[in-house]
Each structure stands twice: as structure tokens, then as C-alpha cells.
């Protein structure tokens, strides 16, 4: 029982990343009808926002500390971060420690801006062109973004730590009345899950309860009619593209402590998140979220030793097998809407 619960927890965590990326992808499908292969790159850029903030906060100057000497007897040089000199050592160190959460504040405007520029500068010209062209041009864009990041940050993964408070793991099982040490769970993964639930809830609330969201939903259903009512639907869709980029970016920011960001992490997630979208059903937001968590949980179940001893290697291919089965039995995915991306 506790082993199963542990796998569910692990899976929810993996599923959070899938669900967030797939949510953004689906927003773009549903509103603009564009297949965005650069979405993984947006996720990657989000993670590098965290790296950037970490670097900015760690910018430091060297001073000579008279009280200490190094091993040659010369006065020792001490590196002090600017933040520490401005806010005092205690507060400064605390700020640096929280660089990943602080990166969210940095990432939101950056991602909105990148999304806006991408839509206005490139995607806008591809609405009328076939899906193959959209895939190709965004695939090219993904390569370019990835290479630019590689140029500035190098090809190696860059460790980006979670705040000290959330480092380490805790005994989750005891809280639920299991034996001690049955379910040891890292704090940050719980934070990641909570964060993604918050974002997903936020996006749904935004679409459900605001006038803006209502108009966007109407536009998703029938773009022309909404346009005829005198609403500038294109503008709203552009903003939605920015929001989708921001969702992917935030997923990336928070993912940075789990897996050190590297320049090709976007491509690694992209394929899986497309599979998630297809399983959930093109254009269905709840479908994307559901399928994300579902596939995450399935994947972690498949990686249990008990399962692997029955079907070896199932953990590597379970997602694809499930995707293929679902696509062939329920062509529209779990909750797909009619008429989206069907040509």
C-alpha cells in the first residue's frame, strides 16, 4: 500500500511537469490552432531564467580581508555578493538562497514578452499555412533558441538549488499513519506539485471567471462570430499565447532544482508533452492536465521493480504504448473536442 502511494506521489510529480507543458500547448492549439514545436524551448528558457537570477544574485566583488591571511601569508581576498553588501550579510544570504522562487517574478514578464514577440513576429504569419509548415518553422525556432542558450550558458547542466528550507526530504508516511521510513519524500517535489496545481487552477479560473477568459473561450469555439461582435479577438489570442509561454516558463523555473537545467531539456520534454496532449485530446484543457498526471503516474508505476520483473523495460516505453493504444481506440484522445486539428 505504501509502495503504491509512493509511486502515485512520484508520478504526480512527474505528471506536474507534463501537465503544465501540455496545458500551454493545448492553450495554443485551442486558441490559435498552431502546433508549437518550440514549446519545449520555452520550458527550457524558463529554467534558464532561474539560472540567470541565480547568477545575478551571486554577482560579487572582491575585497581584502585584513583579519585573515591565506596560506602564503598575504591578506586574504573575500568575495562578497552585492546583494549581501546592500542588505547586510544575513538578509543578503537569505535572498540568494531564495533565487529560484524569486526567479518566478523575473520569469513572468520575460516569458510574456517572449511569447508576445514570438506570436507577433512569427506565428502570426502561419495561421493560414498547413500544420506541417507550423511544425517545421517552430522546430527551426526551437533549434535556434536552444543554440542561443547554449552559446550563452554552455552545454553543461547548471546546478540550481532550491532554498535551504526545502532541501532534503521528510517522512511523508508518518503523517499519514504509515510506518516510519516507508515514504520518504523530497520537500521540493511537494512544492513543485503544489505550485503546478496552483498554476493549473489559476489558468482555469482565469478562463472561467473573468470576462477576458469568457471571450477567449468563446473565440476558441467560434472565432469568426466573436470577431464579428466587434471584439478584437486576435489581440486576446496573442495575450493567451503569452500566457501559455509563461505557464511553460514557470514550469521550467520550478523544475530547475529537480534537474539541473541544460540546453536540450526542452527537446527531451517536448516529445512527451506532445504525446500527453494527444492522449488528453487536442484542444481540451482538462484533458491535457488529466493525461499529464495519468501518464506521469503510469510511468512511475511501470518503473517499480515488481512490474519490471514481469515485463522488462516497460518503464521506458509505457507512455508510448499507452499513447498508441489510446489514439487507435479513441482517435480524439480522452477528452478531445470535435473539429480541433482534424484535417
Amino acid at each position, binding site marked *: 500500500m505504501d509502495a503504491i502511494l509512493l509511486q502515485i506521489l512520484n508520478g504526480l510529480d512527474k505528471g506536474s511537469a507534463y501537465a503544465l507543458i501540455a496545458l500551454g500547448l493545448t492553450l495554443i492549439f485551442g486558441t490559435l490552432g498552431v502546433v508549437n514545436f518550440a514549446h519545449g524551448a520555452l520550458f527550457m528558457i524558463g529554467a534558464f531564467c532561474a539560472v540567470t537570477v541565480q547568477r545575478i544574485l551571486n554577482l560579487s566583488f572582491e575585497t581584502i580581508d585584513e583579519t585573515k591571511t591565506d596560506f602564503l601569508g598575504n591578506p586574504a581576498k573575500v568575495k562578497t555578493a552585492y546583494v549581501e553588501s546592500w542588505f547586510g550579510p544575513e538578509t543578503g544570504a537569505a535572498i540568494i538562497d531564495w533565487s529560484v522562487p524569486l526567479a518566478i517574478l523575473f520569469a513572468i514578464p520575460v516569458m510574456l514578452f517572449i511569447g508576445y514577440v514570438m506570436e507577433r513576429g512569427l506565428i502570426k504569419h502561419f495561421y493560414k499555412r498547413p500544420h506541417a509548415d507550423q511544425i517545421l518553422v517552430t522546430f527551426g525556432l526551437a533549434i535556434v533558441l*536552444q543554440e542561443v542558450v547554449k552559446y550563452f550558458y554552455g552545454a553543461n547542466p547548471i546546478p540550481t538549488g532550491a532554498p535551504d528550507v526545502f532541501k532534503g526530504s521528510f517522512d511523508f508516511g508518518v503523517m499519514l499513519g504509515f510506518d516510519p521510513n516507508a515514504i520518504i519524500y523530497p520537500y521540493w517535489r511537494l512544492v513543485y506539485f503544489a505550485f503546478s496545481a496552483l498554476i493549473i487552477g489559476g489558468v482555469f479560473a482565469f478562463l472561467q471567471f473573468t470576462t477576458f477568459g469568457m471571450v477567449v473561450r468563446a473565440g476558441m469555439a467560434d472565432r469568426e462570430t466573436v470577431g464579428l461582435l466587434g471584439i478584437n479577438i486576435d489581440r486576446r489570442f496573442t495575450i493567451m499565447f503569452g500566457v501559455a509561454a509563461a505557464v511553460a516558463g514557470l514550469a521550467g523555473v520550478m523544475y530547475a532544482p529537480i534537474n539541473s537545467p541544460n540546453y536540450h531539456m526542452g527537446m527531451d520534454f517536448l516529445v512527451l508533452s506532445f504525446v500527453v496532449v494527444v492522449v488528453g485530446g487536442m484542444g481540451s484543457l482538462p484533458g491535457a492536465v488529466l493525461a499529464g498526471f495519468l501518464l506521469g503516474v503510469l510511468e512511475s508505476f511501470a518503473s517499480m521493480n515488481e512490474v519490471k520483473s514481469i515485463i522488462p523495460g516497460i518503464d521506458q516505453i509505457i507512455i508510448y504504448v499507452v499513447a498508441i493504444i489510446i489514439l487507435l481506440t479513441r482517435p480524439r484522445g480522452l477528452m478531445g473536442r470535435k473539429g480541433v486539428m482534424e484535417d
Partner: protein
Amino acid sequence: MFGLDKKDTTLLIIVACLALFAPFILNPFPTGSAMAQFNAGYPDLMQRFVIFGIFAIGFNILFGLTGYLSFGHAAFLGVGSYSAVWMFKLVGMNVIPAIVLSVIVAGLFAVVIGFVSLRRSGIYFSILTLAFAQMSFNLAYSVLTPITNGETGLQLTLDDPRVLGVSQTADGSIPVTSLFGLEMRSTYEMVVGPWAFQFNVGYYLCALIMLVSFYLAVRIFRSPFGMMLRAVKSNQQRMNYTGLNTRPYTLAAFVISGMYAGLAGGLMASMDPLAGAERMQWTASGEVVLMTILGGAGTLIGPVVGAGFIKYFENIFSKINDTVLHQWFAFMPDGVEDFMVFVVHPFIGKGWHLTLGILFMLVVIFLPGGLVEGGQKVKNWIKGRGKSEDSKSGKTEPAE
């Protein structure tokens, strides 16, 4: 000639000449001169040109004609490589059985994947092929380790049985791949003044096979079957409404292009007998898509041009480093020189993927017909006549 019309015959002859004289054409600069780094006339690279040319020609039969964008073709390439290496391990070092087996296995594999994937079209098809390719990659990488040797890759060893050949040569090394005793790697070097031209058996075998595949592709393009595939591309729904089942046609196209990919994989393993899982990764499928689009999807010569273009720049651009750049810009004043090197630096060496990505985006945005269409535009512009583009030969079908 060969059942082709005049235009196609000319094209075929041009391609044949290019392939035949490639060691000369690709080696325009004398060895030892400063420009020698732009020479591409060495066997290794020339083999890659034609092998990826075959891969792209095959991909074009599916994508260029039917418009089905497969992101999983690298799987067939990998399967072809693996089966060829197995043939070398078990039967002998002759390349013919290896190539035959790789084509057959890739074809069977394509039947299975195509049968399932082609039930959906458009974006769903792309994702399905992507999923299958990733699945094959993961299988090859970990699950099927007894067959594929996992992440190390499949290699020849001294204790392989090789029933029709020798397990090891007299001096105790692994025998090399050959065509009835003609070693693939044997190279004749012709020295003419400062030039050194290399003629490699493996390259000429690949080139010959490429010519045959090119000829077959031309025949397919011009056949009623090719016409049917074009009809599928322009409007599949209408085809279905006329009571015609398009599935067998698209499946046939998928299998043919899979067999081409298998052939390319088999040749790759014949030239260099090892096979690894990374050949099957989906980014490798992306590469063949890039080649086809860059050259011009739906055109006959486009994929070959694209493959040559990408492989040339991959090998030449990545060799250029800052020292070379400084030599280039040495005639400029110091400050300008450093600035130019700084500007160009991100696009060369390890950063050539950036150049490729930008180039690819530009092609998709401005030149949907690829380099071939670009060439024709330039030609028309030079001619200076205001002909409308449609009045040109029927050779170019824009990529869609």
C-alpha cells in the same frame, strides 16, 4: 531513355555525372593551400553525402508526394543499420546480403508502423510516428540490449561466427566489409600537381546505389501511383468521397520510403560496421526533414541537394575556428577584425546548428519550395522576363 522523358533523362545524367566526378568537383582547392579546408572530397564525407541523399530521397517519396510528415524515419535508418551489422556478424563481410536484409527488415518494420500510424492524418500522424520512433529508440537503448547491445552500440568482434567468411583475418584482426573481395575502404589516390584526388570503392558503391534509387524515385514520381499520391496530398477527403480507398497507396508510399531509409542505414553500416541507438533518436528524424525541406520537398533533386548542403556545412563549418576567422579578416583594421570575429563566432564551429536553424526558418518562411525553388527564382530573375511562376516546368511542387 530508361522510360523517362527528355527532361528527366537530362536530370538523371547530370546527377550521374555529379556523382561520378564528385572526387574532382568536391576537391577544387590544392592540398596544403589555405582554402583546402573547404574541400569535401574525402571518402568519409562523400559517402555521407550520398547515403543521406538516399535517406532524403526516400523521405521525399512520403512527405513530398503525400504530405504526410513523419517524424519517425530515423527508426528505419537505425533498424537498417542494426540488421546490416547482424548480417556482418553472422554471415560474412560481403555487403550485398547486409544491404538486402536491412532493406527487407526496414520494410517489414515500416509495414507495421505505417499500418498503425496511417489510420490518422495530419498532426496526429506526425505524433504517432514520433511516438513509435521514440519507442524504438528506447527499446534499442535499453530493453533489447541482447540484440542491440544497448548504449554501447552494436560492434563486430573477433569471435563472431561469420559462417560464409572468416571470423578473423590471418593477422588476427576483424575482416573489413567488402563487395566480393573489393574492400569498401580501399582508396586509390591520384596526385595531379598539387591536387590529390581520392577514389574510394565504398563511395562508388553508394553512389551507384544512390543513382539507382534516384532513378526509381523519378519513376515513382512520374507513375500513376505517384499521381495518386499527389492527389492524396491535395485533397484526401475528396479522394475518399469518390469511393477510392487511399490507405493502400499511402501505406505503400510509407513502406517504400521506410525501405529507402533502411537502405541508407544498411549502407551506413556497410561503410563503417557499427550501429548505435542514437541513430534512431527523433532529432535524427528531424535532420532528414530539414534536408528535404531545405532542398525542396516534392522536387526530384531537392532532397539530394538538401542532404549534400547540410552534410557539407556540418563538416566544413564545424571545422572553422577563431584562428581561421582571424586569418580571414586579417586585412581589416584590428578593432574591426576582432568585431567581425566576434560577430561570426557564434555561427561557426560548435555553433553551426544555430546557422542551420536560422537557415531552416528562413527557408520555411520565405522559400517554401526550398533551395530548388530559390535557384529557379534566381534563374528567372536573371532571365529578366516577367513570367509568372506557374508557367515554369512542372518539376517544382512547392512543399506545402
